[in-house]
């Protein structure tokens, strides 16, 4: 299945990428876009449905006011203009998981239009700000979910039968569409990742969505085309779907650039099509061929009245927007006394909110950053999940740090406590108790181990007696090993030096 690829540097030497990103955000409203059904994720199939979201004959939609408010707030946060009057439109096409066989969406009258989001990307010349221009953000409803049973691909073709769950049908979506993003060159994959990440942070800050990419509440479609130079006409694009993590955004674009370049270098035309990203194998595969002739027969939704937000309401919402993530990160950088680069690594790791929450639970900023960016980031990476999906809360991290501060745990023991918390063994203190983790603070027990270490390594002992204090490391290490890490390394060092007359 894997296509011929060209080395990334060679792609950049010969081609200029043009990106377009379509992000779908599921709003976290209590009810659906056009009916009162609940929106809880993971409920039993077809238990959150009614005549309207099932598209039963005679049913009618009613717009969810909270969803409109969320749409406007998103638009304002993205520096968009807000339409003073706009309508919904029907997008007509047949698909089994779409109850009415049309999607109630917006067409040429989006509620939000003409905005931008600035993102910072590390380049060879230092941090550079890229402006991602937003063409529009509009309201629509989600479709149901098909499950294709039998067959090997999990796709509709070759399946024995298909099941449809309409719980998701009618959940409010905001589709945010960028203008073609040009001029990013070799940083295109990073810019795209930074954009989606910044958008995610912004949406989370607004509190309008839980923005969980792996659960599909934030979904990204990547349009990409290559051209031979920035002056050349736009090339044929592909639209890659199923890009379900920030890392995938970057990888999928990199892959698609390499794949398209290989074809173009070979003189083969790019097919305008939908492609699917495969997280596991790191490739995209061909989906549906999309032609410009695809005709959705949009027309204004006659079952709904126009949405006409008043200027007063818009201004009120604008005045209540939270601090923009970029401003916030600048402020925090100053409060914490860290560099821009250090701050960026917190943001890029998706750790900012977690760090803030941990601070709010009583940990100090440096320790909070240390845990989330160090040990916990490593665990998330090993498990292949987002940091926020780790089975540990900010409160638990703060509690853990408190145990370290109190002298009960050292970092090594704390890592074992993390093992326990992630394994579901309970709160940090309980894990420490049940696993018997506790720094050995009894000096007499330590002295016995120290004297054994001195006896075992007389050379090191002599060096210390001669004033080479740095040699203490070897003896401290031996003692830590002998006590299986349950000693306070600082205290051991003090005692070693004391025993050897320093």
């Amino acid at each position, binding site marked *: 299945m894997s296509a011929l690829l060209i080395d990334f540097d060679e792609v950049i030497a010969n081609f200029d990428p043009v990106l377009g990103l379509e992000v779908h955000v599921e709003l976290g409203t209590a009810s659906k876009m056009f009916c009162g059904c609940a929106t809880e994720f993971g409920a039993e199939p077809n238990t959150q449905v009614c005549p309207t979201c099932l598209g039963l004959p005679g049913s009618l939609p009613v717009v969810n006011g909270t969803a409109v408010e969320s749409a406007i707030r998103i638009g304002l946060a993205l520096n968009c203009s807000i339409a003073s009057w706009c309508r919904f439109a029907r997008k007509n096409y047949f698909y089994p998981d779409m109850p009415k066989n049309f999607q109630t969406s917006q067409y040429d009258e989006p509620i939000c239009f003409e905005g931008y989001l600035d993102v910072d990307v590390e380049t060879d010349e230092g941090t550079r700000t890229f402006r991602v221009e937003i063409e529009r953000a509009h309201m629509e409803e989600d479709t149901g979910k098909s499950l294709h049973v039998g067959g090997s691909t999990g796709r509709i073709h070759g399946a024995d039968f298909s099941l449809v769950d309409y719980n998701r049908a009618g959940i409010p979506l905001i589709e945010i569409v960028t203008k073609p993003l040009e001029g990013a060159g070799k940083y295109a994959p990073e810019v795209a990742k930074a954009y989606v990440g910044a958008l995610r942070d912004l949406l989370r800050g607004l509190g309008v969505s839980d923005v969980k990419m792996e659960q599909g509440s934030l979904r990204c479609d990547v349009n990409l085309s290559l051209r031979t130079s920035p002056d050349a006409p736009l090339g044929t694009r592909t639209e890659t779907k199923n890009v379900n993590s920030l890392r995938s955004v970057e990888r999928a674009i990199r892959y698609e650039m390499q794949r398209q370049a290989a074809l173009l270098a070979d003189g083969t035309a790019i097919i305008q099509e939908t492609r699917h990203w495969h997280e596991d194998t790191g490739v995209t595969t061909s989906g549906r061929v999309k032609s410009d002739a695809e005709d959705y027969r949009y027309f204004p939704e*006659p079952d709904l009245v126009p949405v006409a937000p008043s200027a007063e309401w818009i201004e009120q919402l604008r005045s209540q927007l939270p601090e923009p993530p970029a401003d916030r990160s600048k402020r925090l950088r100053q409060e914490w006394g860290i560099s821009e680069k250090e701050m960026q690594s917190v943001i890029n790791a998706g750790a900012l909110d977690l760090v803030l929450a941990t601070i709010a639970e009583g940990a100090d900023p440096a320790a909070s950053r240390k845990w989330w960016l160090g040990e916990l980031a490593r665990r998330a990476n090993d498990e292949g999940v987002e940091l926020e999906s780790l089975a540990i809360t900010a409160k638990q991290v703060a509690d853990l740090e408190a145990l370290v501060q109190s002298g009960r745990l050292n970092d090594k023991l704390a890592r074992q406590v993390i093992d326990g918390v992630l394994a579901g063994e309970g709160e940090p203190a309980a894990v420490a108790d049940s696993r018997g983790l506790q720094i050995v603070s009894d000096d007499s027990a330590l002295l016995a181990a120290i004297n054994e270490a001195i006896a075992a390594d007389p050379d090191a002992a002599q060096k210390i007696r001669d004033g080479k204090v740095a040699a203490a490391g070897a003896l401290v290490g031996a003692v830590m090993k002998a006590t299986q890490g349950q000693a306070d390394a600082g205290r051991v060092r003090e005692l070693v030096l004391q025993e050897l007359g320093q």
Partner: protein
Amino acid sequence: MSDLIHASAVELAAQIANKTVSAVEVAQAHLDRIAEVDGRVNAFLYVDGDGALEQARAVDHAVASGQTLSPLAGVPLALKDVLTQTGVPTTAGSKILEGWRPPYDATVVERLRDAGVVILGKTNMDEFAMGSSTENSAYGPTHNPWDLERIPGGSSGGSAAAVSAYEAPLAIGTDTGGSIRQPAAVTGIVGAKPTYGAVSRYGLVAFSSSLDQAGPFARTVVDTALLHSVIAGHDPRDSTSIKEAVPDVVGAAKSADVSKMRIGVVRELSGEGYQPGVQARFDEAVELLRAQGAEIIEISCPSFTYALGAYYLIAPSECSSNLARFDAMRFGLRTDDNGELSAEDVMRHTRAAGFGPEVKRRIILGTYALSSGYYDAYYGQAQKVRTLITRDFEAAWASVDVLISPTTPTEPFRIGERVNDPVAMYKADLCTLPSSLYGGPAISVPIGLGDENLPVGLQVMAPVMADDQVYRVASAVEKALAQQWGGLLLDQAVAL
């Protein structure tokens, strides 16, 4: 007991309230009448005898316990089969919905229940309300009680025929381009299309969302107004529902006072294509109104000429989208699901088998009109015409209170006569289309018999939310003619 079937809704409600007769007796009398004549009329697709008697018993119980009753409590009603009623089949006259029993009540049905109205059953109609003769029903045509060889109009032909044949004193129809007014006219009864948005569309199986409107049928104007007042009113489940209070249609119907009213005669709705008998009855009705003190003014509405063209782009466009949901997935018919065909093919086969020819014609027409490259020339242009028609109405309201015209250009044609000529069929709605596109209220009231001794109706049109005005004028005409005839026009029909 046969007097029960000839009584008006007002009389029946009074007799039930003062215990002269029970609601169960009234319901039973109408069920008996249905059993007697409906084999010939075919007004009903489903008769819910048990349900009707149960509702009637509940009314009798309320009477016995001294509760205050609504003005129509215990009065039987025939419901067009395009409105959902929990547990009772709803077909919209189509094979594609055969066997579907909706899990919810339309708002209209809910209001009828709350008012103690007894629903006898579901009436025949042109499939998905597309037609002017009820010949497009998948379940056979309905026959006009005046002449069983003739069409009862459509699409609400079943509801109109049920009232005309004394199978029910009241009926609910829906009107998209004339589907209440035209059947009322050709069966010699009263039918009103309320202001668009006055009656909730929740539970009305959509044909054309921006035009569909449910409304009342009865044999008298006051009965029609009473039913109107029961079903109208704001409904939060329908976004296009109007929030303003319902005008006092009952008061207007009872007053029947047209003195000093300015009544406009639409010049464009007469002349070529209008049967002489229809024109003659219309002219007489105008004189009756003048004699009662109304000022008659001729009005020109030039854009009305384009109503037919605009309507046959807008309505099919909306229907092509509204009818997409009939796909065999969640309800209704499913054809050839043999484990071999894909979901798309099962959809295709089901739609091919389930929809009739007129529905297919309109879906294709609408799909074409909405296609990219054609949208502006067809759907877009039709919307502009709609705006022009609205402006004609608004200009007219500067000089008149209501507009009048014949309801239909001709008397009812013979069953089968126009089935192969869609355009001739569409012309039956020539007079009713303008106010549908505008969204204002309109009523049809009987004004006599035409050249073929068949009923002719007068249409009265009024400004948006001035529904009371159409009842006022219709009532004045009804009253004057009742004096001439010694009763209703329907009394002149040959008994079935």
